[in-house]
């Protein structure tokens, strides 16, 4: 079955390396996908108000476009897209009245019937491709690379949309092990990165980043991976602020989990490391991976 690939805003700009590495890896692993035509913004954050159908229209419009184009499954890379689309989908599936209202809002689109499943890339890798298959296809094992996986919030919470345990997840660790790397467990792996507070409270976000990254470093990690462009930005770019706040702080490279996947699968030229604030190339070179 072919996935409708929903990129979302940042995958085409700041997180280009995330998209390129993910797409190249999926092709190599034989997962079929096509980018959804005419996709729009997912809304970024899921509206938590009980009376606000308007704020679910964006997500349902995306879902109905996928449905009417004949897709049954939608693939997301960004945690926030995953969360908003999945929650909106669950809401309208369980609340026909809400769905009807939203369908009325969307004059220009066919009514959504609720037949699309929203999946995150990690779920697809785990459940469809399987890590065993990935292990067998690794051409350049990430031997000796000590990596802390950072999940953030929206892949794990609320529990209804979680792709793994919402307190102690291990899907990324399992993936990293299959790539030959050494996962480092950190108690801060499911802690919030501060999200959109990065706009008006970068001091707070830097505080979160410091706690998350120093906990990983203390446990011996050389690298932190994530699968969300906003987490990435907050952990990577805000290290500038962290360094300002803590003088002895030593920056640590942040990668998208798919960049490591692509590396291990021997794919070239999809990394866009120039978009990273903390340059990972010297670390990767020292491990013989570049």
């Amino acid at each position: 079955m072919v996935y409708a690939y929903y990129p979302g805003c940042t995958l085409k700009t700041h997180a280009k390396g995330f998209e390129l590495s993910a797409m190249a890896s999926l092709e190599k692993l034989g997962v079929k996908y096509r980018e959804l035509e005419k996709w729009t913004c997912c809304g970024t954050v899921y509206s938590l108000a009980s009376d606000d159908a308007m704020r679910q229209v964006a997500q349902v419009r995306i879902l109905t476009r996928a449905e009417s184009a004949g897709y049954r499954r939608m693939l997301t890379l960004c945690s926030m897209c995953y969360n908003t689309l999945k929650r909106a989908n669950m809401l309208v599936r369980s609340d026909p009245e809400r769905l009807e209202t939203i369908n009325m809002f969307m004059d220009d689109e066919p009514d959504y019937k609720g037949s699309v499943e929203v999946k995150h890339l990690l779920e697809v890798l785990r459940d469809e491709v399987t890590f065993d298959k990935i292990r067998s296809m690794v051409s350049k094992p990430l031997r000796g690379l000590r990596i802390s996986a950072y999940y953030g919030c929206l892949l794990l919470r609320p529990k209804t949309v979680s792709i793994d345990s919402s307190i102690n997840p291990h899907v990324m660790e399992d993936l990293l092990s299959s790539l030959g790397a050494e996962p480092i467990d950190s108690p801060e792996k499911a802690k919030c990165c501060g999200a959109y507070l990065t706009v008006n409270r970068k001091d707070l976000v830097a505080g979160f980043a410091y706690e998350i990254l120093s906990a990983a470093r203390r446990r011996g990690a050389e690298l932190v991976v994530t699968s969300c462009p906003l987490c990435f930005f907050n952990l990577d770019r805000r290290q500038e602020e962290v360094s300002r706040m803590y003088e002895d702080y030593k920056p640590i490279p942040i990668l998208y989990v798919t960049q490591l996947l692509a590396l291990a699968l021997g794919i070239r030229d999809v990394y866009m490391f120039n978009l990273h604030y903390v340059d990972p190339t010297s670390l990767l070179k020292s491990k013989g991976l570049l």
Partner: protein
Amino acid sequence: MGYGVFICHCGQNIAGTIDIEKLVRKVSGIRGVTHVEDYIFMCSDPGQERIKKAIKEKNLEGIVVAACSPSLHEETFRKAAESVGLNPYLVEIANIREWSAWPHQAEPEEATMKAFKIIESTVEKLNGDKPLEPLRLEVVRRVMVIGGGIAGIQAALDVAEAGIEVILVERSPSIGGRMAQLSETFPTLDCPQCILTPKMTSVAHHPLVKLLAYSEVEEVSGSAGNFKVKVRRKPTYVDWNKCVGCGLCMEACPVELPSEFEMGLAHRKAIYIQFPQAVPNKAVIDSENCIRMKYGRGCGLCAQKCPANAITFEDNGKAEEYDVGAIIVATGLEVMDKANFAEYGAGELKDVLTGLEFERMLAPSGPTGGKVVRPSDGRVPKEVVFIQCVGSRDPENWNPYCSKICCMYTAKQALLYKHAVPGGQAYIFYIDIRADGKGYEEFIHRAMAEEGVIYLRGRVGRVYQEGDKLRVEGVDTISGLKIVIDADMVVLATAAVPSSGVEELAKKLRIQLGEGGWLKEAHLKLRPLETLTSGVFIAGAAQYPKDITDTVSQASGAAAKAVAFLSKGYVVREPLIAVVNEDICSGCGNCEEACSYQAIKVVDGKANVDESLCEGCGSCTAACPSGAVQLKNYDKRQIIKMVESIVG
């Protein structure tokens, strides 16, 4: 002639909402009703006298008492009627209190109408009622007690002391149960070994008690007074007639496994005696892990060492059948595994213990000889955090109920820790302190005020390893502060849950489980020791978490219930059971499939009801496509008439 209706005011319970005068007037108009009377308390002696008098004087053919739920006073009114010669099954209760007066306090007029409808429909039912005679069955004067913890031991002793034979069944190699695992008991700080061991010995040696250790109930048939129980004696691979419990075999055995009794904090061998004071003090071989048993050859070191030549390696166990009149279920509780709690390390953090594990550590006979040390590095912990309500009072994730015993045992453990480590600091995170027993509040006071345990009101969100410390992130909701403690050890008061396997046992016994899997009592207030299956009683924590005091009291209560049940020599059973109209029955067997009590069987193409087994539940009547099976005095026709009178 005709029917009488007796309307109870129940003080203000009914009369406060329902217009009695109007109700009496309306009820007088029901066809067939020749006598209506109201009174403030029908269940009182003068109330009953009124009923008796009316039955005699008016020569009533049947009566309806409009009062509270039949589970409370149906029996009372039946007896009153019987004493003046009216068949007790021509007494019907119209429940106008729970069904109308209480739920409709805000709408008295409608409540009065509803009460009338209830009475009217009950009169309709009475119309179809037939006089019945109760069934009488002889009983077997023998009791089976399932579970050999303190509850089972106490119940067995009490029954035996009353001169009735007891079969005590315990699934592990020794009796003693959870109490045998404890360090000291609150609030008196008695050593459980000192008070439990004598009871274990006396139950094992009582002439009227037959102890079946390492055995499980496999099948139960029959009914109250006449149960047949098949017990499987599990294979021990050791001849217990020869075994003297010297323990040389254990020394010889090369296989080490985590000990269940020590909660995994110490090892046992593949051949083992459960614990030093075990009763019976006999060894068993864990056949799954014994080298000789696994490969069929080799090793055999234990057999070489055994001075009594008791080790056989061959034993298929056996099934034995016992006839018993009553059964007492005393299967006790377990605590939840810490691996369930991801926020507290999911069992990966070595220095996070459950209460029961810590209990073993505190026990003088335990794996550390009563020393408190960290399992990770053997150091004495200076800062210990106790967390209560782990998995309890948590309807969203685990159990909605309060485990009841944790407040007290946590206080005790904190206190014992302070005794073991004088310079140490204990912290207890709690939501509420429930100290509702004799001397309990004083005990908490002692922990707080005299022994310096710090109580923090709130829960802990997370525990994780930070260096060689456990970082505890909690909250104190009284000060409104987030609390961080770098602890050396964390003890979780994990929720009490019913013993594993109780679900299957309940199915075999045909008793119900309630919320959380605890055994369901017949009535929470008035029949807490009985189950809805007559002849089966409950003792101890199988019903709900209990401390030792409550467990022992309840065990004695259950024993008294069982003794009283058997001492009459016969059981009387309600005749309200299924009956088959053979002219209509086509023998399809739907009823047989529907019956949970194996009480109805198709014999020669006709359904046939075993009166001693039928509980009168009505499943068969619902399953019968043609209506050939009916309940006595609950005939479909009566029910349709009742419905008619309500909707009409």
